[in-house]
């Protein structure tokens, strides 16, 4: 499972406060904790009204001081992402493009001949498509463009868009259809999603998130944006990989347990 650590995001009030107060230690601590928890990427999202690129630069420098993990540059603005790419020590993850506006047209040429990976959302200028068929239509468009720039499917993380369950009864069922179809068409592609979206406006969200993770992994999710310091969720990830037959002799599960990524705190 590719784990994109979500904690450094200016839309989280405590992080917004740290950014406003230039509290670098707060940011570094979040990067360290997510690294120790087993993250694959550290997501960095500024979410500020003005000075997004400068803020991204400040955040990226802090993260790179304390971890060697690659960074996921997270912004709704393709220009901000492109401007922030030179700040990182090694190729990471673009978070994200979609069928909206000129995102793909700007980002894909820049990452074409690089090792950068990219999250692509299955929405376009019409918004979030309601039906699985429409999301797969957006997906087909994304793949056409990727092919044009020679971007291998294995560098793409397709987000079929996780919606809140409480207002969309068939959110999981539809996602299952989309995820399975994506994996079937391109076995090496990654399917990703923002796990906690599923539980918005529900009580005791963490149990919904955990069950979602299991079902989504069964449908093909192999990359996800969540908080890796959530030990129960991490345990569920390793247990589910073993249950899906992806873990020879359960050694990954045992090793992660030994490393203290989940289970009782010793």
């Amino acid at each position, binding site marked *: 499972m590719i784990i994109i650590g979500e904690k450094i995001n200016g839309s989280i009030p405590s992080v917004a406060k740290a950014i406003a107060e230039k509290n670098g230690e707060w940011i570094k601590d979040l990067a360290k904790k997510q690294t120790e928890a087993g993250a694959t990427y550290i997501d960095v999202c500024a979410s500020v009204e003005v000075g997004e690129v400068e803020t991204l630069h400040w955040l990226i420098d802090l993260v790179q001081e304390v971890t060697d993990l690659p960074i996921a540059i997270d912004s709704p603005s393709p220009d901000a992402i492109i401007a922030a790419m030179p700040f990182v020590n090694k190729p990471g993850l673009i978070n994200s493009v979609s069928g909206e506006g000129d995102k793909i047209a700007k980002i894909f040429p820049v990452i074409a001949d690089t090792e950068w990976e990219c999250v692509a959302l299955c929405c376009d200028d019409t918004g979030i498509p309601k039906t699985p068929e429409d999301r797969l239509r957006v997906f087909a468009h994304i793949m056409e463009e990727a092919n044009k720039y020679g971007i291998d499917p294995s560098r793409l993380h397709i987000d079929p868009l996780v919606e809140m369950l409480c207002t969309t009864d068939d959110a999981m069922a539809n996602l299952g259809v989309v995820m399975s179809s994506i994996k079937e068409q391109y076995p090496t592609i990654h399917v990703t999603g923002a796990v906690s979206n599923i539980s918005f406006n529900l009580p005791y969200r963490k149990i919904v998130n955990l069950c979602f993770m299991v079902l989504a992994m069964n449908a093909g999710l192999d990359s996800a944006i969540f908080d890796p310091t959530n030990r129960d969720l991490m345990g569920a990830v390793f247990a589910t990989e073993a249950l899906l037959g992806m873990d020879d*002799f*359960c*050694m990954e599960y*045992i090793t992660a347990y030994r490393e203290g990524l989940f289970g009782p705190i010793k």
Partner: protein
Amino acid sequence: MSKLEELAAAVETGKAKIVPGLVEECLAEGIEPMDILNKGMIDAMGVVGEKFKNNEIFVPEMLVAARAMKKGVEVVKPKLGAGNSATIGKMIMGTVAGDLHDIGKNLVIMMIESAGFEVVDLGVDVPIDKFLEAAADPEVKIVGCSALLTTTMPSLRDTVEALNKAPNRAQFKIMVGGAPVTEEFAKEIGADCYTDDAAAAAEAAKTLV
């Protein structure tokens, strides 16, 4: 760390992919094949067994260690000169008649093989005659019988009774085990040895030959 220690560490942690290469490197350094087998691998499995007994590791970790050792043995075996047998004895092993449990028996076989024995697996639901026939082999030093159900414990009793009447009884020892079996029951039915788990079985087997 010496090459031999490196090999032992790789066996202990179940690194099946690098073990054959490390055995080759040990041979290239001129280390005696017998030392590679004993110090590099069998002793390492002894450590693994000890850790398992102390609940420090889980069953799969023991399995991958044994698998790694097997890969190493394949490389070193042809290098052991004539008369320098790789085995310390031959054992036959089976689950008694009426009982189809396989996994526990296989685990015991693996650990006993890792201790340096040649083990002949008679399988599950093994009739008494088949045990007797196999035990007639003059090479056999240990006969292992497994029963995993309270309902097949009488079958274990019958099997051991028949083995005790074998004409070559003095030549082999009888080991028994399985979830419902106890030390007391083992004594009562006339077996020579009982152990709690696969690692202890391997340790005990070494003392029986």
